[in-house]
């Protein structure tokens, strides 16, 4: 366990070095957040029928999306891992007395965490200073905040479990571009990051609820905004745990299989 921890720490420290990248990210996310808010404001103004999520709640979701972007986006990747596989430098990783799956998992969690530490707080802080209704406000209750925190953590665990599949897939394809693109786009759409899940038509919504993607971002953010109540939130966390179990087992199994067939590239 200590090995994973020190590996995690090393990765975290490395990620924290990139302050300028984080600053640029903060500005982009702000800009993007404003565009989304303006689009949805226009949409809400033009309709008179009540929507399944209020503009106020939606704005909370948007700010959370922007600040925890590196937590929830599938395309956020560790290109070093891809080059390890394609260049054959994975040889050394395989010479270590640890499970490769666990090792890479720790590495990916650390990478996302270090990215979020530098980006999320500044965005949240500035967004909460904005005037109503555009600002970021405090959670509906302390309990729902606790629930949000649990769901967000599990969401991080879940998204890394999903992204591990992309890395393992690269053992077979030798190029990450295709799977990254497909997983990235599908994940973003079915995770409710393009169109908020409550605004989707019923059929699409039922598909989204079957897939794991919405349990990464949509669930925790809507819990925070108060759009998902305590009861439904707890249910969602149960489903998160289920998906994590399924995807971790699947990933581990697939990794074992891939390593049997893997050819270490290069001499």
């Amino acid at each position, binding site marked *: 366990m*200590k090995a994973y*921890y020190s*590996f995690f720490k090393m990765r975290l420290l490395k990620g924290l070095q990139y302050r300028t990248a984080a600053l640029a990210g903060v500005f982009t996310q702000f800009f993007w957040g404003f565009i989304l808010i303006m689009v949805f404001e226009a949409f809400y103004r033009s309709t008179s029928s009540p929507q399944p999520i209020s503009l106020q709640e939606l704005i909370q979701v948007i700010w959370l999306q922007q600040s925890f972007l590196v937590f929830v986006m599938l395309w956020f990747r560790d290109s070093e891992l891809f080059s390890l596989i394609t260049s054959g430098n994975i040889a050394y990783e*395989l*010479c270590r*007395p640890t499970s490769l799956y666990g090792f890479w998992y720790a590495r990916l969690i650390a990478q996302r965490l270090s990215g979020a530490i530098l980006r999320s707080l500044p965005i949240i802080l500035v967004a909460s200073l904005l005037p109503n209704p555009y600002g970021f406000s405090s959670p509906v209750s302390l309990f729902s905040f606790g629930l949000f925190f649990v769901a967000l953590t599990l969401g991080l665990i879940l998204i890394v479990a999903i992204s591990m599949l992309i890395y393992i897939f690269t053992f077979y394809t030798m190029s990450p571009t295709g799977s990254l693109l497909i997983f990235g786009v599908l994940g973003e759409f079915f995770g409710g990051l393009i169109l908020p899940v409550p605004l989707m038509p019923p059929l699409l919504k039922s598909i989204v609820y079957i897939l794991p993607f919405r349990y990464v971002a949509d669930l925790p953010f809507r819990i925070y905004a108060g759009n998902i109540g305590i009861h439904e939130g707890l249910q969602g966390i149960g489903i998160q745990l289920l998906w994590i179990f399924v995807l971790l087992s699947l990933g581990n199994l697939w990794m074992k299989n891939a390593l049997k067939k*893997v050819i*270490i590239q290069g001499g």
Partner: protein
Amino acid sequence: MIEVEGLYKSFKVAQRNAGVTAAIKSIFNPQYKTVQALEDISFTIDEGEIVGYIGPNGAGKSTTIKIISGILVPDSGKCSILGNTPWKNRINHVRNIGVVFGQRSQLWWDVPVMDSYYLLKDIYKIPETTFKSNLDLLTATLDLSALLSTPVRQLSLGQRMRCEIGASLLHDPKILFLDEPTIGLDAVSKMAVRNFINTINQEKKVTVILTTHDMSDIEALAERIILIGKGKKLMDGTLTELKNRFVTHKTVTVDFAASTQDLSIKGTTVLSRTKERISLAVDLETIKVSDVISILSQNFDIKDVAVNAQPVEEIIVDLYKEFQI
């Protein structure tokens, strides 16, 4: 300690000619060729041996190293290293081994070497005291003290290689696999690496298997040689055996006080002759070198004698020729 029996491994290699037409053709009709990388490789290595694993490019050296270090699964064959089958009990197996791939790096590129060492300490769960004593030994013998606090990307190749070798020995491995450890190193660094390998072999009884193209590595280190070519084992024996079998000639060069006397000794051929020097190729099957020298000393007023054996490089070239690899 290391028992390898009947190892087979083949690779499917994509084939296509250069050029756009060939590339488009291969989209619809990809051509593959099966390359037999290893064919019935068997050997046994005992504790404390240093074995040179040699062969021309593409012979299957690296493939063998990959298989016995547990990172490649062979098509068939048995292998038992300290009771483990590398590709089945990978995690238990790699605890016992240290590996250096000369062309790859195990150190973290952006951080000082010492950070990588600490990480390895945690990965291998090395006790504090062992880590410290190993680090001291490695620092002293590999002359690392000035390098440990430098980021890896700022080290020269030779410096980095010394750190790489250090990194693979922190956890007291019983076996060390070195895949071309001296590739690209200058003479001084090569000497340092060789001395070091000898030291740990003698002091810690580490079994060493090394692949190399540098025959002076072999001469300086390996008692035993395994020669492979085109995936097959061709020879397994000591360096002396190899020499006895393939060294058939020696060169005797003699300087003497000026003389124009003609001389022919049976079993020798004159390679060059000046007024003060003669160089003879001696056929060891016909005549002994000492006899040649005594005949020469009877005829000339000898000032200096030099006897040269065929260098190992040439023997290896002859070997490759003989086995047609």
